[in-house]
């Protein structure tokens, strides 16, 4: 049984989207800007109302509370929001937070810097670390390395590969075709109002 099963999900200006995702699999979502890639991730995370059905391990999302669904199916926005003054306050487990930051190529001291003083790339990686804290089963990543230099991008990709090996499934929106090939074997190509699954 597939880990994530998206069945006829209704996204504005897009024909109903269906695909499945196995454990440890990455699906690259590709398409021009404004075609609904972010809306697709948001709909899977149940952040916007959308018709259609989504299953996790055979269980329909409406069978569990929305907060519980989002603890398993985690959306990481391209421009993450912060509601506390420093990143550390967003993490419960300080030891795990520091370890995850290190994995993503970030010094632990950044956790105590005011969020406003962090660069876009630092904020993006810290948001990814924040999203990994409770080990979600599925990651919905929206341009996770868009603001990163090659070294930082490599650190993020290494981390994502480790997660895939451990069984996490990833839906990755990325304009970087080379990155998509490094992480995924299949793609969901969005063009002309339709989303089609194919090999990369």
């Amino acid at each position, binding site marked *: 049984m597939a880990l994530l099963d998206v069945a006829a999900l209704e996204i504005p200006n897009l024909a109903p989207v269906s695909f499945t995702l196995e454990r440890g699999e990455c699906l690259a979502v590709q398409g021009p800007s404004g075609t609904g890639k972010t809306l697709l991730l948001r709909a899977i*995370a*149940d*952040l*916007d*109302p959308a018709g259609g059905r989504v299953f996790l391990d055979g269980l329909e999302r409406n069978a569990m*509370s*929305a*907060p*519980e669904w*989002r*603890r398993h199916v*985690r*959306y*990481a*926005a391209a*421009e*993450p*929001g*912060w*509601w506390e003054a420093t990143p550390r306050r967003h993490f419960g487990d300080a030891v795990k937070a520091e370890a995850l930051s290190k994995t993503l190529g970030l010094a632990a001291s950044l956790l105590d810097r005011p969020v406003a003083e962090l660069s876009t790339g630092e904020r993006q990686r810290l*948001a990814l670390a*924040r*999203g990994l804290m*409770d080990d979600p089963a599925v990651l919905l990543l929206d341009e996770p390395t868009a603001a990163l230099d090659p070294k930082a991008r490599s650190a993020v990709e290494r981390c994502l590969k480790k997660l895939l090996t451990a069984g996490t499934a990833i839906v990755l929106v990325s304009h970087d075709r080379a990155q998509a090939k490094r992480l995924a074997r299949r793609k969901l190509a969005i063009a002309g109002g339709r989303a089609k699954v194919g090999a990369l």
Partner: protein
Amino acid sequence: MTYVQLTFFDLAGAAALILVNGALSLAFRLGMERSLAVSTLRMCVQLGAIGFVLKFIFAQTSPAWTLGLGLVMILVAGREIAARQETSFEGLWTYGLGTASLLFVGTLGTVFGVGALIGPEPWYTPRYVIPVLGMLLGNTMTGISLGLDTLIGAARRQKAEIEAQIALGAARFEALKPTLRRALRTGMMPIVNAMAASGIVALPGMMTGQILSGVDPVEATKYQLLIMFLIAGGTALGVLVAVLGAAWRLTDERHRLRLDRLRASRG
């Protein structure tokens, strides 16, 4: 009780002061002449009319007439809340939320304040009920307006922060907690400030009115304190009901932030 009755010449003399506002608007090109004239006219007509309406209703001492006027006051105050919002909910939600909160506070506050505390005979005597309800509504209306405006404005500005928490598994009221706190604080601020300034910076309107009409200042103070406590409690309750209702409407049963339920901003 004795007081100096005012003539129309006295009122005309006071009204001449509005010319100062008009001159200021003209001198600094504030463009307020028209709204100033309309507001002045509205005030004269509304206050003049309510004077006669109150005289009629006070003469009836009928619960039906008192209730009728009270309902009209609540409906108008609810409309005022909706009109003061920079961004409102689609449909009649803002009006409904404001009016329902005022109905709750107005009923509770008037029954408790007039019925249980002041205790006139009969308890619905309009001479007591209408002024108390009016003061309660006027102040609660300001608190609710500010609270709703703060909540909705902050939810729009801080969409990314709120949705980040929701995406991490927070329930809707948990994600809105800082926004709710700010809205409640803003809504209650005017009455807290008014209480702190009462008696030093300004003598409250009702107390001034009672003193002018010959009531002993200590008695007037007791009435004013009672009213201030009623307003403080009423504002807190009204702001709480309205802001929680708005937060509920700003989200849905799947804990999503529903800014699509808002109408585009004015201006």
